């Protein structure tokens, strides 16, 4: 009998008697012999808690990446995670609960989601937000589908400065129907080429999708993009980095109609890519076209304030094939992590995180450009992340720096063999940045 199953032989026999079955096998009578498994599953022998803990610690020890000083971003960021977040996330009341369908006994989850929606709406400068999506990239793909529903048009313009992985996800979500994705090239500064966008928008498009700051870390001109796509009766979908919004103007205030993004930087471990959480916010005009769960405030029979899942007629369990999305499970616990993170950092602490990312990434940029042969790639203002060109193979440099204890930036072979996308968060110290620059300089000196 395993540690998870309380009913032993005595209880099972009693229960079978009540059922009117002689043996357990009688309960299998609806399953034809021809499809029953003969023999046992071929799986490793069971292990105890003690052994499993040891096994996991050994496996974790093989993840040497965890010990590297991280200068890599490209969609996942090494920010500081306040300790109190996990104290909340490991409360049974939150992590073992199901989706809050029985609202009267789920007010904790529901109010926390209401607060999450409020925080995301304020951060993005939008009117409302949903309860979460799987990750930032799938959220942007769903935002594009939403724009198609809102406008009745089938063509989406996507800035070429979008994270290529996010672009892949958009294709996965959109290519199945008669929807079309047109990529808009970026200019010499790594920013959306407005002239090309104007040409591609002719004839109308459902949306223009723009990353802010973009994949290269460059800060796009959201207002101009909004003005452009609105003239062509489309929506502006912005894929925003939430930490940068601590200092940069909110896209909703600059004309974005839908703002989606990746919540990982807000208190969630990198954990090799997940679980993360996608956020999505929009204006009042389009709320009813949004996918995913939404919580609303209401009253109980005595007039007390309470919270429920609302606008459910958009969702799959009611609308089935006509739902706004097939999403059911979302990333609620990760959204709670975002909520606690934004609460703990608060107005001043959050702005300070963003400010330090700005200053540290600019200091890193300056230090790297001091290395002989290293040049800038784009001339535009950046936030937290930027591209430089090394006089050597970026791939080889990154490999060599692992041995020196660094996870260097991400090589971007599409921009040239020496191109590398680097990032510095508030966690990086001056000493780490200086050490990294020195190690890279040393490598380049030897390699050239």
């Amino acid at each position, binding site marked *: *009998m*395993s*540690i*998870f199953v*309380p009913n032993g032989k005595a*209880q*099972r026999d009693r*229960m079978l008697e009540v059922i009117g079955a002689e043996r357990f096998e009688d309960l*299998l009578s*609806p*399953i034809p012999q*021809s*499809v029953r498994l003969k023999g046992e*599953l071929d*799986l*490793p*022998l069971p292990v105890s808690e003690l052994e499993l803990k040891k096994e*996991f610690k050994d*496996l974790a020890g093989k993840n040497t990446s*965890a010990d590297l000083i991280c200068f890599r971003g490209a969609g*996942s960021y*090494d920010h500081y995670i306040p300790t109190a977040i996990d104290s909340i996330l490991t409360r049974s*009341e*939150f*992590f073992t*609960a*199901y989706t*809050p369908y*029985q*609202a*009267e006994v*789920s*007010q904790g989850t529901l109010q926390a989601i209401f607060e999450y929606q409020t925080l995301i*709406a304020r951060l993005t400068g939008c*009117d409302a937000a949903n309860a979460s999506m*799987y*990750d930032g990239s*799938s959220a942007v793909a769903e935002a594009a589908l939403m724009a198609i529903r809102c406008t009745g048009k089938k063509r989406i313009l996507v800035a070429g400065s979008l994270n290529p*992985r996010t672009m892949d996800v958009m294709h996965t979500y959109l290519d*199945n129907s008669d929807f079309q994705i047109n990529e808009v090239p970026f200019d010499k500064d790594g920013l959306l080429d407005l002239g090309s966008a104007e040409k591609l928008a002719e004839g109308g498009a459902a949306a223009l999708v723009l990353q802010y700051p973009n994949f290269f870390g460059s800060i796009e001109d959201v207002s101009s993009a909004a003005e452009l796509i609105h003239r062509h009766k489309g929506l502006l979908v912005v894929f925003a980095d939430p930490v940068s*919004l601590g*200092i940069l103007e909110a896209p909703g205030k600059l004309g974005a109609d839908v703002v989606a993004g990746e919540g990982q930087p807000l208190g969630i471990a990198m*954990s090799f890519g*997940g*679980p993360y959480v996608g956020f999505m916010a929009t204006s009042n005009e389009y709320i009813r076209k949004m996918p995913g769960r939404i919580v*609303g*405030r*209401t009253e109980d029979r005595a007039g*007390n304030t*309470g919270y429920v899942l609302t606008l459910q007629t958009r969702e*799959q*369990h009611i609308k089935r094939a006509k*739902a706004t999305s*097939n999403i*059911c*499970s979302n990333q609620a616990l990760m959204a709670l992590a975002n909520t606690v993170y934004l*609460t703990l950092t608060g*107005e001043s602490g*959050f702005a300070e995180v963003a400010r330090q990312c700005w200053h540290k990434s600019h200091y890193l940029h*300056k230090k790297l450009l001091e290395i002989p042969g290293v040049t800038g790639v784009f001339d535009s203002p950046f936030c937290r992340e930027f591209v430089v060109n090394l006089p050597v193979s970026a791939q080889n440099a990154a490999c060599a720096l692992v041995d020196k204890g660094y996870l260097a930036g991400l090589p971007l072979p599409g921009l040239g063999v020496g191109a590398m996308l680097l990032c510095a968060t508030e966690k990086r110290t001056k000493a780490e940045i200086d050490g990294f620059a020195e190690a890279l300089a040393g490598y380049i000196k030897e390699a050239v």
Partner: protein
Amino acid sequence: MEKTIFQYSCPGRIGVSLPALDVPETSVPGRFSRKDPIGLPEVTEGQAMRHFVRLSTMNFNLEKSIYPLGSCTMKYNPRLHEFLARIEGLASVHPLSPDDTVQGTLKIIHELGVYLCEITGFDAVTLQPAAGAQGEFTGLMLIKKWQEARGEGHRNEVLMPDSSHGTNPATCTLAGLKVVSVDSDSHGRVDVEDLRRKAGENTCAFMLTNPNTLGIFESSIKEITQIIHDAGGLNYMDGANMNAMLGIARPGDMGFDVCHLNLHKTFSTPHGGGGPGAGPVCCREFLSPFLPASTVEKAEHGYRLRDAGGNSMGRLLAFHGNVGVLYRAYAYIRTLGAPGLNEVSQVALINANYMKARLKPYYEVPNDDGPCMHEFVASGSAMGIHGVKTLDIAKRLLDYGFHAPTIYFPLIVKEALMIEPTETESLESLDAFVDAMIAIAEEAGEKPHLVTDAPVNTPVLRLDEVKAVKDLFLVEPFESEE
């Protein structure tokens, strides 16, 4: 009632401390700067903790009592797994780390994939889907791509029974395919003759949950899957109910070609108040070229991530899936092994059949023609003469300190109460729940207002969902604090 976090805010308070900036400053160009405050709350860590802990106490949860939501498999979430997934070396690795610096994680992902293939009877797997619905999308896309690759791209119909989960038809739409609904027979199983009529040259796939959403095993499964294969389609199994089948029967042996699993159901990973889950997809070898990006393979010197080939359906998420969830499921399988997993399903079946037997004198159980699997669907329709609906029964259960079953699903049963106890409930706990259900049936006859007025012992009384839609109130207004 608890205030919102915004109502605790007071300028100058902060809940976290950061090291002082130790690099020279670079000015932020004014044209990009945020003009107004964001409106984040300003509280201390202690205030934040008190607020969120107070909120938590208003939640029902698995460690309070039985959570018998049908189709959701609310089983115990082992504490060990929470510890393991948070080990620094596992939790803090960047998803774009070089393969040789993440060998521990890649090994876990690879081994878990091998285990899941063995459990389902398939050959290949992707662990990328973030949830069951994304798994369904993946599965349908594999089939669609396969049909296209063999020149049968015109096939655009997905057949599914009228008892299917809502995600099934919604997923078809997302995949650009058309839903064709197949009738259920008088026992709640697929109407094989109706299926035969509807399967044809446009059939792309058939989607089925087995055991089905009534908790009944589709006894004609071999015949069903054969009909679809003969018509040129492939069979997709929604694995939401896999908790009934561990070590008993495998989808791969039933004629299915692909299935998803819900790790947050069968494999004990926590539901988190709605997520994160994980929806891995297992399939036959001939579908593997179409799997989504980044699969883990065992190479000569350790494990490596392999990028998708030209036939791949693409990428589902930016990175490699809900890896933290995968760690937990791996730990679960390692703890139980083959005999332990088999025991899970055996006891899940016994528990469900026991509850059905005890409840049957008090509640109608439609389609009851033999043993159920891990869940069953009762109906509250007999209480209708007293003005009591299934919704009222569900709310009254909350007063008794239990969570309600899944209600009004599947749609083919009137006033449905879908009950799934899982194997981690003791006999005492099952009895306590059944006793409450019986007491409510009696109340419905004698004092129906006790049921229709419920709940009264909960943090709030019955909530007005109509008002929530009519007077949409989705965010705390900023002005209210100023």
